[in-house]
């Protein structure tokens, strides 16, 4: 990991909010423009990974704790499938969002937003968790451990 280059550090700090903002834009603008939960999740995970590459994985773990991440992975799937169960309670078919709003259009709109949020959570946390475990392995290698002692 690169830790001594000041140019990288400053540029990354400038870029991070822009990347995260773009991810949120892709997420919530998915109804109108290209993109959606999957792309937004990858972009947001890329922002944290970029931070982790430059400042070290332990610094990234402070922003996004690993335990929280592991619980977020199933939560995304549960949000998605739970939306379908909620539509059962409205008397509609599984994953039919029409009864969520006052008319079917606003209901569909809300349903798509919630479902995309579920996709976002799962994709974001899965990507980041895989990165953590790979990068964590390289830090926990025996050679590095001996250096620490």
């Amino acid at each position, binding site marked *: 990991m690169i830790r001594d280059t000041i140019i990288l550090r400053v540029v990354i700090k400038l870029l991070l909010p822009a990347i995260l903002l773009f991810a949120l834009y892709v997420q919530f603008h998915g109804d109108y423009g290209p993109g959606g939960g999957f792309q937004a999740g990858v972009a947001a995970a*890329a922002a944290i990974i970029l931070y982790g590459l430059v400042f070290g994985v332990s610094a990234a773990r402070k922003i996004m704790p690993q335990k929280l991440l592991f619980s977020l992975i199933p939560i995304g799937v549960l949000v*998605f499938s739970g939306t379908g169960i909620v539509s059962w309670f409205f008397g509609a078919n599984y994953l039919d969002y029409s009864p969520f709003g006052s008319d079917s259009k*606003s209901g*569909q709109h809300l349903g798509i937003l919630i479902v995309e949020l579920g996709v976002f959570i799962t*994709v974001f*946390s899965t990507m980041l968790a*895989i*990165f953590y475990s*790979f990068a964590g392995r390289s830090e*926990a290698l025996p050679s590095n451990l001996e250096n620490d002692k």
Partner: protein
Amino acid sequence: MVAAVIGVIRSRNLFVVVILGGIYSFLMATVMVALDAVDVAMTEAAVGAGMSTVLLLAVLGLVKTREAPLRHSPFIPLLVCFLTGAVLIYGTLDLPPFGRQDTPTNQHVAPYYIKNSVKETGSPNIVTAVLASYRGYDTLGETTVIFTGGIGVLILLSTSRRRREKQSSKKDSLT
């Protein structure tokens, strides 16, 4: 793209290969933009060029960065590649020309989506409407696939680390 592929084949330095793979993915994303598939282009740029490059670099941190010399002749893999490529190209000969309206794929449900998706879902982006609403089951399946894949990778990676920690603690107790 051809230059990137030749570079990947020729180079023995795995770091160069990973970076060239990222460049290839970015070029692929521009192809997707040229085909008017902006959603796919974004995914390709983010996952193909960004995420997989970073993950491969993380793996390179664990292994040697030089490719090991070949132990078998490259003739049979080359033959298999050429045969598969030839069959695929033969298959494309029967495809209808790109962008024709009267092809079977464009006659089935696509006109319905184009006509009714704005009316029924209020979303001007037909791709999102199809993905999240009309084909919600498929997207739920995709999310579950990502979930399952991620959990599988995490289990594989975490068990071996736990074993190593156990071994090192054993060593500590011995010394």
